């Protein structure tokens, strides 16, 4: 936990530095018509750097004194989280190819069947009906077009 704390504070400080760099490029002083573009972000960057350094310092001294402390995640927690994260990311990637509804149908089926160990009948039922329902509601009823991807338009033709 404390190690993660240190890393996150360092990441915030770095982000602050990046923001300051861009603000300096844009100009953070008083321009022709009031404050320049980088004025507000510059001070945000400075603030983030200063306060995250404080967080870093606090975490670091506690780390030195009390050791690493509890791990960020309880043992065995990473696996189920990755089992959610990776398939969802895969869903988005597939969305670019075949559109959101078909990608979601695959995602639903995969998660229910492989991760959730749910029976085939339920898997197929939910995996087909819910995307169909949402497709009709959004694309047809409310006329909100959802991404079709490269080939989705050919696959869903009604």
């Amino acid at each position: 936990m404390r190690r993660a704390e240190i890393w996150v504070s360092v990441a915030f400080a770095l982000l602050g530095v990046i923001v300051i760099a861009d603000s300096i490029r844009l100009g953070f002083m008083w321009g022709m018509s009031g404050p320049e573009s980088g004025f507000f972000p510059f001070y945000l960057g400075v603030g983030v750097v200063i306060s995250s350094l404080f967080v870093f310092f606090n975490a670091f001294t506690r780390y030195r004194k009390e050791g690493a402390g509890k791990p960020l995640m309880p043992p065995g927690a990473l696996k189920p989280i990755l089992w959610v994260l990776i398939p969802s990311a895969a869903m988005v990637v597939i969305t670019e190819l075949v559109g959101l509804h078909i990608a979601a149908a695959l995602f639903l089926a995969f998660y229910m069947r492989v991760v959730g160990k749910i029976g085939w009948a339920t898997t197929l039922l939910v995996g087909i009906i819910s995307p169909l329902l949402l497709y009709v509601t959004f694309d047809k009823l409310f006329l909100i077009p959802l991404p079709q991807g490269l080939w989705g338009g050919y696959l869903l033709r009604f």
Partner: protein
Amino acid sequence: MVENINNLMVGLHVVFQPYNLMIIAVGLVLGIIVGVLPGLGGANGVAILIPVVVTMQPTSGIILLSMIYWGALYGGSITSILFNIPGEPWAVAATFDGYPMAKKGRPGKALVLSFLAHGVGALFGCIVLTFFSPILAEFALKFGPAEVFAVMMLTFSAFVGLGGKSPLKTVVAILFGFILASVGMDIVSGQLRMTYGTIVLMGGFNFIVAVIGLFGLGEIFLTVEEGLKVEGISTKIGLKDIWEGVKDVIRYPKALITGTLVGVWMGFKPGGATPASFMAYGFTKQSSANAAEFGTGVSPGIIAPEAAAHGAGTSAMIPMITLGIPGSPTMAVIMGGLMIFGLQPGPMLFKENVDFVWGLIASTWAGNIMGFFLVLAFAPIFASVLKVRFAIFMPLIIYVCAIGAYAVNNRVIDIYYMLIFGVLGYLFKKLDYPIAPMVLALVLGDMAESAMRQALIIGHGSPLVFFTLPLALPLMVAAILIFFWPVIAPLKAKMFGKKA
């Protein structure tokens, strides 16, 4: 006073049109389901519906969005009490005494107590909303850019100084939110900022996408990590439960009043329902004669946090419609809906869109009252939603969230952002960085920046402009005092300690 009641009547006239009544009922039912499901919170429920709502009339659309919130406020506690699974963050405090009472064999009474407390908190919030917001709006009409910026400073200082969590991390979270808001086109000069030559960053970050990721996926990761075990307590709400619930609410007026007041205050000063419920629980426990019994299923332990949660929820509307500063993350998303309709939240709303404002206020009354009877009658049915296996509704929630994230701007990249924000939300929760102030900073970023820049132009570049205007000065002083409160409070204690 009389004028307000007249306006409220006009609003009720709008609300009682059959179409709007239907919207209210649909919104409440959806909201309660959103509330029951862990991982799908009020903020998310609202965010996902925004694309649908855009196709409606503004008043009906915003009524629908707010109904999701009222429904979710009621619904979150049902599963807290029956399954020990808070459906919403603000229902966590309801598990402390609600679940033990249910386990002891009185689930019906626990539910009735919770709903009654919710109802009272909501009604008090409505009263304050109806009679106080016009006054505040009238006052806020005098605000210029310097004052607007000062009010925002005060808001964010309140998170830092009174938030309770690590003040430093709160500062980091707020600044991070502001930084995200400034990515993309500079609203004043049109220059591109923080895009580093990439095209994807040019569009900036939409806060609705961030909300869906932070509150939706982040919650799901947390739920997955802990593992969700539904140990159902089946229940029916009988007349005896209602009678005893009413009796207990009257018997513990202190818990009810503490909860309501803490709630309305926390909602008003942008804290939100979640901290309000914890604070109210803490206060009531401390001041109780039998504090040791808290946690075993005592009535005041249910009444106080529940009244606070709903009081905070309803009063969170006050700063949103009068000042344009949402009082809770869910309210921030509702405000996003307002802006999509071209309604600029703030004092002018009361002058320019009278029908809309009073329709919304009247619907808050109607929705909260109807919601009370809905949950009272159908709580067991709503609870059974959770009997659906987690592995079925969880991917469905992610799917719906993806639709919501995409539909905000019709960009696939936003779905990726949603996933990233989900991981961020998980990390933030784990490491105690508060999410609510960050979201608020992302929402208010553009407004805060333009207010600050305009004020500085008025003051010819001198930051003294914030301290010389008669209305801005007290706000800024209060903001600075509250900001440094975590440092001042121990100092004060020390000084007075030595004197004594």
